[in-house]
């Protein structure tokens, strides 16, 4: 396949999945919260996304006169850009990926680190107090969780003996890494929720506390980019977990590989949404404590144990 066509396909699929997730999430939350959710536009309300998109494109895009404009413009773009870039390394099926980098995981970690800038700059450039508090929280939170996000992945790398995602998936032919790396899986999942700043780790937004946190001052399509960026982030984390821990496209032969990949990813996305419907929000300092005092040592121990077993 021509690389450009692959890029376009991936882009199209990812963007439409992310947009579709808005509807999926609202319907699922409705289901779990004993209400309907959007059910008016089209069958089962599926065109709600379209209606929302039309609305958000035509919304007044108010730019705060007190903001630092170039940075203010850049920040949502950084978020969408970095998360989309990460998709280049996702191996959907053998042969269907944008690039097969030999440092795939490192590239993903690098991109998610860059994503922090979106929060920092967005909150800073808004030049307003609630966004500032939100981005302060977000920065600390994401830096913390990034540390052991990386550490928790190293077990997988050791078992597969590679940073290349295709090889990692291939290495799971015998057993998915969720088995031997269950601890790594749990930690990575938690870190992923924090990375995507979803409830219960949505402190940067903290709706009942900080109004809308770091994007309080954004409106129109710029807000829309933060919004969609969040869903791209969920999709990304789910896809990465699928590839690293759940055997990627591998599965019994009665379904094509791509179907397996999509099913696994979708289940993880649903769990993300279920989290949102279930948990209260811990306080920001409790979250940091939980990260540094419990998850980080746990990730290190997991790494050491895995290394010992691999060497033995």
């Amino acid at each position, binding site marked *: 396949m021509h690389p450009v066509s692959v890029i376009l396909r991936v882009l199209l699929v990812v963007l439409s999945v992310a947009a579709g997730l808005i509807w999926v999430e609202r319907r699922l*939350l409705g289901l779990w919260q*004993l209400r309907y959710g959007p059910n008016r536009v089209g069958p089962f309300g599926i065109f709600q996304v379209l209606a929302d998109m039309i609305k958000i494109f035509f919304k007044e895009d108010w730019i705060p006169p007190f903001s630092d404009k170039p940075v203010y413009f850049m920040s949502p773009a950084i978020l969408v850009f970095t998360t989309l870039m990460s998709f280049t390394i996702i191996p959907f099926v053998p042969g269907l990926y944008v690039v097969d980098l030999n440092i795939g995981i490192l590239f993903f970690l690098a991109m998610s680190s860059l994503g922090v800038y979106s929060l920092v700059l967005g909150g800073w450039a808004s030049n307003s107090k609630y966004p500032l508090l939100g981005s302060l929280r977000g920065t600390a939170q994401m830096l913390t969780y990034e540390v052991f996000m990386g550490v928790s992945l190293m077990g997988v790398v050791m078992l597969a003996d590679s940073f290349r995602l295709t090889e990692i998936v291939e290495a799971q032919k015998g057993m998915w890494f969720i088995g031997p790396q269950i601890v790594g899986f749990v930690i990575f999942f938690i870190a992923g929720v924090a990375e995507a700043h979803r409830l219960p780790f949505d402190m940067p937004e903290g709706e009942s*506390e900080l*109004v809308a946190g770091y994007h309080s001052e954004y409106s129109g399509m710029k807000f829309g980019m933060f919004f969609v960026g969040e869903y791209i982030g969920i999709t990304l984390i789910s896809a990465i977990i699928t590839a690293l821990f759940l055997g990627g496209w591998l599965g019994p032969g009665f379904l094509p590989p791509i179907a397996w990949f999509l099913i696994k990813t979708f289940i993880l996305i649903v769990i993300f949404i279920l989290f949102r419907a279930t948990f*209260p*929000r811990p306080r920001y300092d409790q979250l940091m404590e939980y990260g540094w005092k419990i998850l980080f040592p746990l990730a290190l121990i997991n790494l050491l144990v895995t290394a010992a077993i691999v060497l033995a």
Partner: protein
Amino acid sequence: MKDQSLINKLNIRFGEEVLHWQDTADDIPTLWVAKDQAAAVCQDLKNDSELAFSMLYDLTAIDERQRQNRQGQPDSEFTLVYHLLSFQNNADVRIKVPLNDRDEISTVQDIWPAANWYEREVFDMFGLRFSGHPDLRRILMPSSWAGHPLRKEHAARATELEPFSLPDDKWEEEEEHLRYNPEQWGMKRSSEDSEFMFLNLGPQHPGTHGLLRLVLQLEGENILDVVPDIGFHHRGAEKMGERQTWHTYIPYTDRVDYLSGVLNNLPYVMAVEQLAGIKVPDRAKVIRIMMSELFRIISHLVYYGTFAQDVGALSPVFYMFTDREKAFKIVEAVCGARMHPNWFRIGGVAQDLPKGWERLVKEFVDYLPKRLRTYDKMVMKNKIFKNRTEGIGVYTTQEAIEWGVTGPGLRATGMEWDFRKMRPYSGYEQFDFEIPTGTNGDCYDRTMVRIEEMRQSLRIIEQCMNNMPPGDYKSDHQLATPPKKDGTMKDIETLINHFLGVSWGPVIPPGESFVGVEGAKGNNGYYLVSDGNTTSYRTRVRAPSFPHIQMVPYISKGYTIPDLLAILGSVDYVLADVDR
């Protein structure tokens, strides 16, 4: 039931200071004291180990300048009224101070911290000044307001004033009034090593549950101080009491604590009944209790759900609102309306219960306990929820009393004090229920107490359902409103009475009366002064949320912003109840 022994004790203690003993319809010992002695008498009443009037329950004033019926009372243009409460003796006392327009009276703020806002309110509403008050400024009205609304010369209707306009320059001026200036509040902008952030939380903020503005002094996310700014929801409920008839004021009471509907009607109608000497038939009493308890559950369900949402749990609020909807179904069937049924009447209730009401009530009583058990697992036993609420916003019983806290907030500190038990009204003494208490006085316990109260309310409702007495739903008393129509076409006297009662409304005999009930948020009371007219001379709404909000700065210092939101949620105030 006049407590003669208390009067004797007071007489021995303060015989010399007392100018006059006043008789009131509510039999609360009411003594008049000269303004120079008032603070000292208050201090003595509080400190005396035998009397122990430890709570400043209410502080308000009356503009006496147009009052006709006040025989024997010391002459005054204004009267300041302190209402004190002794938990030790389960007794009240009312101290009245005669004042003239320009008089200054010394503050009692140093005796009870709760007096701070009450005195500001009196200043705002009547223009009376308190010497020694640290911060005597308007509290409910905007600082640009001219005049003091509860003075008799102040207009009660917008039509008596110039048409309202807000040109640009006035707009800017008003905005300037709202600008927060830390120095005005004696706050520093920075310490030696850091600059403080002043965060304006509200009046539009998802966490404040209404039009409440708090200015936070922050160092990072740590709260150094909080300044509440209330009054955005002020609608002049007390002033309206002076222009509506006794009967037509009932709908306004519904809207004071707008989450607990008829529970607001109860103290008001009982106070009027006390003035008029109406005895309410048993059936009406039980109906009133049943509906009140139903509204207590409704209010607590809102509390439960929104509190869970304040600490970030998105789902519970939907479940609890669904349950609340089921309760509203009963309210709708009985009263015809949902949130503000306006259903109690002077002398009874508006209508008899509809056919089949038992079935509806039974369904609900069977349904809710299961749901509450589910919520226990979902919310109260949740680890994150516990971490967020335990040990947050703590106050002791002593502090609660100093600050005038009543209701679940007081019981969460371990004090077993419920007006339904301690001073049974409307027949509560015949019901079997318990008073849940907490131990720590933190956000978690305040929630726990309310949940347990819902279970107790269900018990009461069940007992009402099983023991509903037959008989009339409204008193035969001629002042019961609207009056009975049975005899109107037979004799002229009844016809005239009915006609006057319906067209003018009842004329309530002169007197004063206070009735407080255990509301959903705390002790909710009405202090009514009748001058023998079709309207009240002075209506004072003693709202529980007002002192509760006053306490928020005290209990949130040293915590962080998320904790503040948890504290606000757990205090369970309604802004209409704060501002009235």
